[in-house]
């Protein structure tokens, strides 16, 4: 059990527990907090794989901006605890073992495939940030500019949607 494997299992367990907590909590703010835990665990996994820039961007953008947006909306809309549902019990009793079986088949198929490569950070010629930025500004410059346009459209859309109707 190398240290990397131990850290992987800790972070993976944290991520799965966070996702389970998201499903099982009844108040949306607790689900949001669990999702933040999942994102931070995933950022740790990206760091473990050597992609430090993606890890930092994940925490700054996803954990520090998008989830803040979610938390704000939950606070503003005063979302309360979820009501009781009238979903059938059979769905739970039959569904959970079936889902676990499906997941087991999927995991076995993945493990048996040719993906025996080790995903670890081997030092390449350039640092991770430099590599990504070179690719972003040379090969992918057109999608990059398009995403800035996309963000502008999203800002305009959010402003228009949030306006109160002039009565």
């Amino acid at each position, binding site marked *: 059990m190398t240290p990397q494997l131990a850290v992987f299992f800790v972070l993976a367990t944290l991520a799965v527990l966070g996702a389970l907590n998201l499903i099982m909590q009844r108040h*949306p703010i607790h689900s949001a907090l669990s999702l933040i835990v999942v994102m931070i665990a995933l950022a740790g996994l990206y760091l473990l794989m050597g992609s430090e820039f993606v890890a930092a961007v*994940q925490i700054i953008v*996803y954990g520090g901006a998008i989830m803040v947006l979610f938390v704000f909306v939950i606070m503003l809309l005063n979302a309360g605890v979820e009501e009781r549902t009238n979903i059938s019990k059979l769905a739970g009793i039959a569904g959970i073992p079936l889902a676990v079986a499906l997941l087991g088949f999927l995991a076995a198929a993945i493990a048996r495939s040719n993906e025996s490569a080790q995903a670890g950070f081997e030092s390449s010629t350039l640092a991770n940030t430099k590599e990504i930025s070179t690719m972003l500004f040379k090969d992918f410059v057109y999608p990059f500019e398009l995403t800035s346009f996309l963000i502008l459209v999203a800002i305009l859309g959010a402003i228009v949607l949030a306006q109160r109707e002039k009565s």
Partner: protein
Amino acid sequence: MVPTSYYLILSAVLFGLGVVAFVFKRNVITIFMSIELMLNAVNLAFVAFSQARHQSDGQVFVLFVIVVAAAEAAVGLGIIILMARNRQSLNVERVDLLKL
């Protein structure tokens, strides 16, 4: 070093949990959060493959996915706020008719 298949299995588990949350929760904000969880699972798979093949394409694509998720969250939450204002409820079971 950690084998790539471990990361892929974790990604599949997180994606599956996202789908479960999407199907079974009734609060529209929680459903939206499960979409973000699914996107994160896919990001993990991208970065795992990118590092296994020692190419940065996967990580650049992850950056794009994060940007698109941000834009989608902004607009989607705007729509949710409008919906809550019009129907005074965040329960998707109450929003199942096209007519008000």
